[in-house]
Every structure is written in C-alpha cells, then in structure tokens.
C-alpha cells in the first residue's frame, strides 16, 4: 500500500472504518487517516471564478495559568491575495487580525471611587486590517485600505474558534489612487460611523464553514461630496470534499454585494491546503 494507501482519502467516500475515534478514520487494512481539519492554521491556494489567490492563516490561544477562565483567541491572516485571471482585477490584504478576549465572567468595571464590577454577557475584542489593495476590471482607481478597525462584542462567548456572533462599530481609512499616476483621487474616512455584524460557524470536525458578514454606515469623502452611505455584505460557505495525503481540498462558494460598485458577485472555487496544521484530535500513529 505504502504512500498510495494514504493518498486520496476522500472523507465523503471513506469506507466504513473498522475502528475509529472521533477524528481519525481507519481503513479495513488498518491505515489511519484524517477526518477532522484545522481551518485556522494553513497556507492555502484558492482558484475560482473570481481568480487565483492564497493566504496564510494562523490561529492561537493565549491562556493564563492563574486565571483558567480567561483566554485570548487570536486569529491572523497574512498576505491574502486574489488575482482575476480573465480580467485586470486584484484584491489583497497584507494583514488581517481578530483578537477576542473570552472570559467566563464578562463584566464592566467602573473604577470611580471604590471600583465596581457589573456583569456583562459578552466577550470583547477587536478586528484590524492593514494594507488592503483592491482594483477592479475597467476602473481607473485603486482602492488602498490603510487601516480598518472594529471593536467587537461577541455574544456567542464561545471558548473555541468555531462559533462567533459578533458586532461592533467600525472605523476605516481608505485612499483611492489613480492607477496610472498613483495620485490621490479621494479618501474615505469612517470614524466609527459604520457598524458590522459577523456570524461565523464551523462544524465540529472542521469540514464545513459558514461566514456571514454585513457592514454598513457612512464614510466621509472629502472630495467626493462629503458623507456617503456605504454598505457591503458577504457570505462564504466552505466545505471540504476530499483530502489528498490528509491535505484538504474544499469547495468554496460565496456571494458579495457592495454599494460602492452597486454590484453583487457570486463566486465558486476550490481551495487547496498546501501546508496545514493537523487537528490535535487526530491521531495517525498506530499504537497497536
């Protein structure tokens, strides 16, 4: 069997395992394979109707020995990029980060006089983006997002990365550059004058992911008529359909609407994980 036995381990087509725990499959011949995946730690390539691209995703948790009920859930995405193949379009980000402080005991502290603690049923955190670049086919400008930040309130209070129901105010500063001479055409500044909502769900086995994001409000355009309403919504569904050498291959479908361009774009593609962290629940070593 050798290497070939470990190749093409299709999750959906896996033979009935002779013996398996929750996240490790075992063939009739006794070979083990992965059936749970870590969606947050991977270098992936995506090819789809909107182009070809990739991203590096990192997730980690910061814990505290003296306060076991507190942890920081940290998510980072580095060098995310998608380039259209059939048109001159590009979308990328140098860095995206999300930091959520999960505590079993959410509270607000009023430090005036004797400090008082009032219970609050949510986690807090922030989402930041730096260095986003977008240009669309047929447009003369490139949109450079210098910084975007949102203060988050996560009412799901999940201890894992699998569930997030978050909302909060958003601030951003974008610059529109003329593509040929790279002169500034306009700015868009939102001093927390937007609000966002984010629903994120992952299945326990990491095979499925749903992310819905809605953002809307107004931003100031100094050369474009002052305050303008802007809104965007995006939904992404990712489903791992097979794995090659335990590297997952996923089907990705999504839809995005942006009032700035007044267009709705649907996309479908395939995502291949080139390098990924193994889900710690998976045990591929045979201890028989």
């Amino acid at each position: 069997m050798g290497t070939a036995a470990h190749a093409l381990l299709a999750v959906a087509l896996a033979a009935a395992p002779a013996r398996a725990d929750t996240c490790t499959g075992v063939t009739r011949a006794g070979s083990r394979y992965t059936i749970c995946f870590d969606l947050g730690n991977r270098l992936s390539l995506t090819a789809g109707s909107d182009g070809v691209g990739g991203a590096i995703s990192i997730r980690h948790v910061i814990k505290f020995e003296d306060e076991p009920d507190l942890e920081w859930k940290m998510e980072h995405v580095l060098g995310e990029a998608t380039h259209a193949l059939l048109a001159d379009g590009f979308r990328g980000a140098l860095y995206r980060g999300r930091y959520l402080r999960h505590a079993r005991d959410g509270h607000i502290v009023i430090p005036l006089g004797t400090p008082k603690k009032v219970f609050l049923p949510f986690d807090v955190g922030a989402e930041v983006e730096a260095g986003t670049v977008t240009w669309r086919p047929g447009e003369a400008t490139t949109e450079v997002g210098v910084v975007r930040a949102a203060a988050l309130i996560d009412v799901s209070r999940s201890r894992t990365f699998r569930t997030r129901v978050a909302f909060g105010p958003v601030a951003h500063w974008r610059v529109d550059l003329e593509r040929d001479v790279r002169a500034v055409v306009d700015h868009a500044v939102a001093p927390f004058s937007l609000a966002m909502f984010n629903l994120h769900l992952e299945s326990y086995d990491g095979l499925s992911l749903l992310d819905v994001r809605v953002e809307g409000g107004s931003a100031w355009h100094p050369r474009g008529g002052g305050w303008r309403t802007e809104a965007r919504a995006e939904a992404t569904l990712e489903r791992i359909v097979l794995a090659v050498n335990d590297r997952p291959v996923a089907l990705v479908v999504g839809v995005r609407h942006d009032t700035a361009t007044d267009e709705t774009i649907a996309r479908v593609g395939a995502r291949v994980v080139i390098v990924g962290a193994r889900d710690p629940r998976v045990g591929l070593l045979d201890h028989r």
Partner: protein
Amino acid sequence: MRAIATLVAIGIGLPGVATAGPRATRFDGERPMMDPTREVKCVRDLEGKMWRIQCNDAKKVCLYVENEELDVDGRRAKPLERARACPILDESFDRAKYEARGYTMMPGRADAPYGWTRDERGRVFQVNFDLRKRLYLGVAYTPQKLLDRVEDPFQNKRSALDFGLLQFQWYLGGDAPTRHRFKFVEGQVRVEPFSSQVTIAHYDMSNRFLDPLLRITTFFGKPQRHDLHLNLGLWTEAGTLEMRDTPVGPAQLWKHATAQVTFDLWQSARLESFLRLRTGLGLEGARDDVNGYRSAITGASALELDCVLDNAGFHNVKLSIEHEIPRYFVPVQPDGTTKFAQRARAQFLYEAIVLAINDQPLTLKLAAGGEKRNDIPGVPDQWAFVMDAGLRFSLWAPPRTHF
C-alpha cells in the same frame, strides 16, 4: 480526631461561617482585603466548606472569607480566579484561643495579584492598567463642531479617528536600566478638513547610566558632590505618511526614515515617564500639485514629556514641541529659490481611564495642538490650532509592572 477537632473549632470559631443558604444582607459595607504578602491558610468548617483565613499578629485581626466566588444569592459558585495556592491546615484553627489572645475575627475579601482587586463576592477584576502596552481604537470630536452647528450637535463633521494597532515596552533593569518602546501602525485621520498621519513602525530607547558624565564638587560650606548624568538614547521611525487637502490640491509627505539621539532631562524610576530632548535627521519625500515630487533631508528637534501621573496608570499626559527643517535637493515654491522649509508643531494629550469592559479600558482623551509650517503650498504660514475630545478603547493593557 484531628480533622474533627478542626471542623469543630472552625464551626465554633467563625460565627455565621457554618450557616448554609442565602445571606443577601451579608454584602453590606466594605470588607477589608487580605494582604497578598502575608500567609493565608485554608480550613474546612463543619459542613466541609473551605475558608481562607489570614491573621495579622500586629493588628490582632484575623480575616476569613469563602474559598469560592459567590453568586448573587451568596452561594458558593466557582473557584476563585487569580487566587494564591492555599495550604490546607491539617490542624485545628482554635478561634477561642485566638480571641483569648486579643484577636478579632472579621469577614474579609481574598487577596488578588498586584493590579487586581475583588468585590464582595470574590470576583476579581483589573484596576491597574499599562496604557503603553495595548492595541487602541479611538474616535474624537472637536468642540468647534458644537459651536458651529448647535442645532445639529451630532453632525459628524470635524470628527477624527485614531488608532495604534500594537504598542508595547520592554524594560531591562540591572546596572544600566534600559527601556525599549515599540509602536506599530499608529496614526490619526481627521474628517473635515481632511488630514491624516500614520506611522508604520516606531522604536525608541531610554537609558540610565549610573556613572555620571561629570562630578562637580562644591566647597561652599560643607563639601558636596553633584553628579551630571548624560542619559542618551535613540529614537527612530520608519514609514510615516502625512496627507492633507489644501486649496491648491492634495499634499503628501512621506517620511521614509528618521533617526534621532535623545537626551533625557528627567526619568522616572523605571523610565516609564520622562522629559527629554531629541534631535536628528530624516529622509523624506513630499508631493503636491505645485511642486510635484521632491525629496529632502530633514533636521528635526523636539522637547517631549511623557508622564504617568498615578501608580494605577489612570492618568497619562504627553506633551511635545517639535521643530523640523527639511532641506530639499531642488528649490521649491513659493519663490522657487529656497531649498529650506520649516515646520513647528506643539501637541498636548491627556488620557484618563473612565471604565473597563472585561478588563479592557475605555479612556477619555483630551488633546490640543498647534502647527505652523511653510512646506505645503496653499497652507498659510501661520499657527493653526485644534482641540479634540474623544474616547479610546484599548485591548490588552495589562497591569503596570509592580516595583
């Protein structure tokens, strides 16, 4: 027998301790907190519930408190957070014996680590914040907005956002104390009139040299020695971008890199606060519709005060007075003959913590600033002033280092 004796002794010795059930009135008044530097012991009562006890031999007082957090009804709900390990006594705690020696038994609160405290239910929360270690997002408004448009005070004109995606400091003690300060992606954007400034990376360093540069001895009366220290450091920035709109078009200033020497006139004990002079050179490029693109080497000097006013880190003051002289490689407008320009800037910032959400502080920011410059066509060469009042939400902000 020893265990039974312990239970009996505690049950007798701690009035109300062995009483089970809700006690809604027991939270009235402020309980004293246990001293985190003194020994604390754990004992069980007649019902097997664990109590923390700490006795102060000097004050003849013993504090006792439940070893768990309490719910709103006073029932034990969950283990104490950020609590010290508590050795469980295997011998009796004899209250009668302590009272005979003049001790008073009082309900108290369990101790908490430095920078934290507990409420009456034993819930821990942070009361000391280091605003130099944080990610912050802020929004500010100028009072002028209200004066201009009293009929519409919620109009968002003249608002601003500020941000610092990561800043932290690193202190090295020892014979030559040094503090390293890092800031990444920090800036501010004003809406109307539009202006913006962002710095990708900042690093500066303060030193304290124990050996003085000069020792001056005076012989007026009793001979006395006076030391003159030269506490030199380093100040650098890379990737600063300033953008603003002017009547003659947009202007951009790229400060590619700046390096300066700092001279600390005053330093706090651990170099967190300082008053310093700095001076040095930078390489920059500017672009506007009148001059096009031009590069310059810029000499810059500044006087800076950065001060934490209280030990809890609630009140913070920053003051800076800066002067910059860009020397362009080609003559620039308005007269087309000079290669020099001038920029002067003064800024004051007061930031105070008003509350904390899940131990993440929300601060009030009051700022004032003035600027006078002649390097941007269309901007009058005169002082312009602005004031801000705003809020900042910070993440991380751990307790300040205990010393």
